[in-house]
């Protein structure tokens, strides 16, 4: 539970960052990094999974309220929080048990791959739920890719701050 209070605090910080700063950056006038998912990506995998999903839902819902987007961010946050375990089932070392995987401790290259896949997934889902139309989603591919790259940059940057390998 103590860990979850820490995660709630981290989520609050990232939500404030997203709303006050990242939503207004508009890099090159058009691109908005999405960093609020970072704390969701480092939540424990199987411990208190229902609580993790509720945290993700309310994080997304709060952002939806601010952005007038209904439940787009809530749906995205819950989805990526749930499917993380499927990613680790596929990519983990066969000898390793899913319960013992600590995201903070995985190698940086694996972490970048993990962040990249989930940030891309989140971006596609946000634009897909907004458009509700595959044709329109395809038109947005450039924005999705650039938003993803910028978001990955910031998320890796934050990860290095919070889990700097040099500190270990």
């Amino acid at each position: 539970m103590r860990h979850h209070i820490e995660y709630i605090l981290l989520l609050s910080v990232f939500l404030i960052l997203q709303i006050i700063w990242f939503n207004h950056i508009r890099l090159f006038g058009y691109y908005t990094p999405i960093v609020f998912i970072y704390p969701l990506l480092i939540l424990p995998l199987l411990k208190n999974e229902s609580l993790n999903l509720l945290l993700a839902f309310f994080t997304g819902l709060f952002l939806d309220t601010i952005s007038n987007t209904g439940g787009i961010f809530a749906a995205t946050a819950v989805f990526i929080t749930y499917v993380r375990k499927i990613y680790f089932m596929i990519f983990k070392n066969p000898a390793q048990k899913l319960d013992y995987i600590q995201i903070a401790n995985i190698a940086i290259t694996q972490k970048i791959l993990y962040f990249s896949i989930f940030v891309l997934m989140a971006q596609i889902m946000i634009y897909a739920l907004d458009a509700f139309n595959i044709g329109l989603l395809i038109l947005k591919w450039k924005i999705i890719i650039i938003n993803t790259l910028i978001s990955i940059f910031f998320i890796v940057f934050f990860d290095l701050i919070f889990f700097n390998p040099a500190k270990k």
Partner: protein
Amino acid sequence: MIKLLKYLASKQNFLVFVFLELIALILIIKTNNYTQLKTHNYQTEIAGSINKITNIINQYFYLKTYNDSLLKQNANLLNQLQNRQQNANNIPPTLPGQYQYIPAYVISNQYDLQHNTLLIDKGESSGVKPETGVITTNGIVGIVQKTSLHYAKVISILNKNLKINVALKNTNYSGFLQWTGKGTNRFEVIDLPVNAPIKKGDTIITGGMSGIFPKGIPIGKIFGYRLVPGKKSYVIFIKSFSDMTNLGPVYVIKNRLKTEIDSLKL
């Protein structure tokens, strides 16, 4: 029964996941529906308060742009005053005082989705009502969708659900403006009659038939058009004058006679 409960307990996480996703999807569908306008005032109020604080911080970075915009607006008003004095004996195009302009600031602006909205810092307490137009010095911004006491939510022209009555400048041929979804300044005008004298570079203005915007507000220039086969109308592609990615001061246009006009349309 106990077996069923045990089975459900073993799938607890999956059930929570499905339940939360369903709630989120219901929220999305409800928000996308144009008919669900009149609820969630509290949501607008909370969003407005937080976005206003954010905007206060951001306004400092755009002070110069806002100043330029206000100077331009002042110049336009001075020009209009001069023209009005010179043409004092002519009949004005609309009834005096029919349109009231309420200045406001955009405190939150979306432009990267398909159904974009924005928030302004004026609401019912300033006389802003749903179905009133919002413009800048460079063109139209959108239509007020719902209001709370101090804020209003505006459907941006960058919203695929919105259609606005427009006309070809210096003619009475009219059609409907809608966003293509392909860029923040690319729009198309549909249902323009086939006998309208269209050429590239012509200006599209507001049509004034809906009573939301007065006739004659410039929207953009034509850069292409095509005939709709079998429909006897044109689809015109235009590039808008206004930059929807950089909005600050705006004006809400309140038509004092809209209720009267609407009652006759019924």
